[in-house]
């Protein structure tokens, strides 16, 4: 199993500003995933982050808006840039190193943009 520390747990931000979310894992993992969960909805994958390479973004998500860093095998950041109220969501990081095992999740970052 993996223990994931994600911070901040919540934040209220002004529109037009940026927020960086950190995700720390207690073991080395190859792949980390960032999800967005809008109010009352399911999880939508934003991007996959591999160490040493550029993140791979899903349709509808772009690097300029959601830049991701993956400097080593235990850490990643997601930045939500130039925020608008539509970015208000829960953002979750996840790791899963072997295909037939479950994914593990951080506790999430609840972002409110005002």
């Amino acid at each position, binding site marked *: 199993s993996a223990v994931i520390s994600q911070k901040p747990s919540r934040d209220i931000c002004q529109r037009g500003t940026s927020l960086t979310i950190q995700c720390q894992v207690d073991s080395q993992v190859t792949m980390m995933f960032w999800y967005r969960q809008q109010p009352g909805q399911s999880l939508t*994958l934003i991007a996959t982050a591999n160490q040493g390479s550029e993140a791979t973004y899903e349709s509808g998500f772009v690097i300029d808006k959601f830049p991701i860093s993956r400097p080593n095998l235990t850490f990643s950041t997601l930045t939500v840039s130039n925020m608008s109220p539509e970015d208000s969501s829960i953002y979750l990081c996840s790791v899963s190193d072997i295909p037939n095992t479950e994914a593990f999740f951080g506790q999430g970052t609840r972002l409110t943009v005002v």
Partner: protein
Amino acid sequence: AQSVAQPEDQVNVAEGNPLTVKCTYSVSGNPYLFWYVQYPNRGLQFLLKYITGDNLVKGSYGFEAEFNKSQTSFHLKKPSALVSDSALYFCAVRDRECSGNTPLVFGKGTRLSVIA
């Protein structure tokens, strides 16, 4: 493409009664299937998974799920519901035919409310 359907937005059940939360999936190959639970202001907690073998899998907190390949279903069940089971439940799938480690695809979630 992979997808998961959870046809019920909300399931209400009386405490002590059995509960079922429905899930059907679509993958091009064979699936790995998962159930997660999300309590208010918390991240996702893993409940159980189907990888291979026995179609009935048992997980945390007394939950179980049955893999039915012909119906492409993986319904979550519990014989006797508790008020503390009230939460948001997500079914997820990964296609085992995909090379490497791919992210999970989630259903929209089902809110379970257990009434005392």
